[in-house]
C-alpha cells in the first residue's frame, strides 16, 4: 500500500503548493502506517526532485520523457494510473488547481476510486474515510465519505501548510507504456506574461472593484502590488466592463483564492465576491460606504475614498520599508 501524490512542475521547478501537497500526503501516510510517494512528470533536475523528500516523500518517481512537456490529459492520467497500480496506491492526491482538476477526475474513473475535490483538512475519520471540503463556494463546509477502496483527493491551496521532515527519499526513474496515440492534444502556441506575480500563488493580492471608477485608475493598484510583491485582481463588474482581463476576476464564477492578505479596494463585497476570497487569512477593505457588506468579512477596514487612500497607503508602506532597512 502507499499514498501517491502528483507533483506538477513549472518549467522544471516546484512551488510552495507542491511541498504543501507532499506534506499533506505524508501526514496521511503516517496516520495509515504507510509511505508517501511523489510522482513527477516532465523534465525536472535531480536536485529539484530531492526537495520533495524534505516534506516526507519516501520515494520520488520521475517520468522525464520529453514527450510529456505539455499537459495532455489522456496521456498524463494514463501514466498516473499506471504508477498508482504499480505502487498499489490506496489514495492519490492532486492539487486543486488547473492541472489537478483536469487529471484527478480521469484518474478516479480509471481506478474506480471515489473523488473528493477541494479538501481542506486531513480526513477526520480514517475508518469511514470522511473528509471535509468547501461547498456552495465557501458558504458551507461539507463532510464527505468515500466508499470505494481507492480514493482520489484534490487539496485546496494554502489549506494545510508545510511540514518539513528528515529527507530519506530515493529517486526512481520510470518509463511508462505510452504510444503516440495516447497524446490527443497538440500545442500550437503559448502566450505567457512573465515577471508578474501569479494570482493563485500570491501571498498578497490587491484587488479593485467598481469603486475604482475606470481602467485608467489602476496605476496605484499596480504600484501597491509591485511594492508588496503582490498580484492584482478585480471584482466581476470590473472584468465585465473590460477594465481588467477576465483572468483577474476573483469571486464565485472567477478564481477562488486564499492569500495571506487580501486588499478589497472599492469592492462592496457581494456574496458572490466573498465566495472567492473568504479563505484569505486577512482581508483589508476600503470603501466609501460604511454599510458595504465587505466590512462584515474584513479584518481591517477604512471608510473613505480609495483614490485618496491608496497613494497614502503606498507612501506609508514605503516609509515602513525604509525604516526596516
Amino acid at each position, binding site marked *: 500500500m502507499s499514498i501517491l501524490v502528483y507533483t506538477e512542475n513549472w518549467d522544471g521547478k516546484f512551488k510552495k503548493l507542491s511541498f504543501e501537497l507532499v506534506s499533506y500526503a505524508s501526514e496521511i501516510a503516517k496516520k495509515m502506517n504507510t509511505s508517501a510517494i511523489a510522482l513527477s512528470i516532465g523534465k525536472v533536475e535531480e536536485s529539484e526532485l530531492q526537495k520533495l523528500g524534505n516534506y516526507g516523500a519516501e520515494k520520488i518517481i520521475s517520468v522525464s520523457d520529453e514527450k510529456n512537456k505539455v499537459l495532455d490529459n489522456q496521456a498524463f492520467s494514463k501514466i498516473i494510473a499506471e504508477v498508482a497500480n504499480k505502487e498499489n496506491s490506496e489514495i492519490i492526491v492532486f492539487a486543486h488547481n488547473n492541472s489537478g482538476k483536469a487529471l484527478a477526475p480521469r484518474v478516479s474513473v480509471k481506478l474506480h476510486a471515489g473523488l473528493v475535490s477541494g479538501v481542506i483538512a486531513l480526513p477526520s475519520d480514517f475508518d469511514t474515510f470522511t473528509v471535509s471540503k468547501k461547498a456552495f463556494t465557501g458558504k458551507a463546509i461539507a463532510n464527505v465519505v468515500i466508499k470505494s477502496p481507492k480514493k482520489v483527493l484534490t487539496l485546496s491551496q494554502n489549506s494545510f501548510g508545510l511540514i518539513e521532515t528528515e529527507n530519506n527519499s530515493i529517486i526512481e526513474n520510470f518509463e511508462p507504456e505510452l504510444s503516440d496515440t495516447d497524446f490527443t492534444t497538440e500545442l500550437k502556441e503559448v502566450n*505567457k506574461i512573465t515577471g508578474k506575480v501569479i494570482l493563485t500563488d500570491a501571498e498578497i493580492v490587491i484587488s479593485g472593484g467598481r469603486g475604482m471608477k475606470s481602467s485608467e485608475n489602476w496605476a496605484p493598484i499596480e504600484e501597491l502590488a509591485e511594492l508588496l510583491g503582490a498580484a492584482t485582481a478585480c471584482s466581476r463588474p470590473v472584468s465585465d466592463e473590460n477594465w481588467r482581463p477576465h483572468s483577474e476576476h476573483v469571486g464565485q464564477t472567477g478564481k477562488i483564492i486564499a492569500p495571506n492578505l487580501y486588499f478589497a479596494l472599492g469592492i462592496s463585497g457581494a456574496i458572490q465576491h466573498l465566495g472567492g476570497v473568504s479563505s484569505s487569512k486577512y482581508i483589508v477593505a476600503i470603501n466609501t460606504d460604511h454599510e458595504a457588506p465587505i466590512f462584515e468579512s474584513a479584518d481591517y477596514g477604512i471608510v473613505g475614498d480609495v483614490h485618496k487612500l491608496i497613494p497614502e497607503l503606498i507612501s506609508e508602506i514605503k516609509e515602513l520599508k525604509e525604516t526596516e532597512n
Partner: protein
Amino acid sequence: MKILICISNVPDTTTKIKFTGDSTEFDVAGVQWIINPWDELALTRALELKEKTNGKIEKISVVSVGLKTAEPTLRKALAIGADEAFRIDCEAKDSNSVAAQIAEVAKDYDIIMCGIEASDYNGSAVGGMLSEFLNIPSVSSVSNLDIENNDILISREIDGGAEILTTKIPFVAIVQKGIAIEPRIPSMRGIMMARKKPLNVVSPIEVENLTEFVSFELPPSKAACKMIDAENVKELVDLLHNEAKVI
C-alpha cells in the same frame, strides 16, 4: 457536428445557504434554481459557434441529471436557444455516477461542453470523468473554443497566460470564465419556441455512488472588523505589520 452541453441545476448564486435534517441536507425551501453559471456560458458559446459556422453545427443539445424539479432549468436552456434537452431521471448525488449517466447520452456527440464546476457542491469532476468514461480527449480550464475551417482551436488557461491547443472530435471541453462574455438571456420568442422543443426523459442506468455527502457545517463566523480612521492610514500599516504580521 453535434454539441452537447451538460447542465447542472443549482441554487441562485445569492441564495442564503441553510441545512435541514440535523445538518445532513441542503434546505431547498424558497430556493430559486438557475443554470450553473459556467454551463450557461458554455451554452452561449455553442450558440455563437452555430451562428458563426453557417450550418456546420446541426444540433445543440443540453443534458441534466435530476428529478422533474430540474425541468424549468432545462426549459430555460431551450429558451436560450438549445434545440433539444435530455433529463436523466434520477437524483445527482455523486460525480462519478452523474458522469456515468451522462456518458450514455453523450456518446452520440462531437463536442461535449461542461462547466469547470457546479456552484453547489464544487466538484470540478463530471467533465473529466465523462471524457474518461467515453475514452476521448478532454481539455480543462478552457477560456475560448473556436472552429476555423475544420480545425478546433482551444485556449487553455495556465498560470500567467494561455496555451492554444488543437484536438480531434469527439472531445470534452471543460470551460471557465471567458468562454463567452455575457450569458444569453431568453427572448420572448425563445420562450414561446421552447415549449415546443423536445425535452426527453431518459431512464437512468444502474451505477453505484462512490461518495456520499454526510453532513454540512457553516463556516466559523469572523470577528468584528477593526475600523481605522481615514485620516490614519499609518495605523493600518502598523496593524498589518505588527499585529497581523503579513507585510
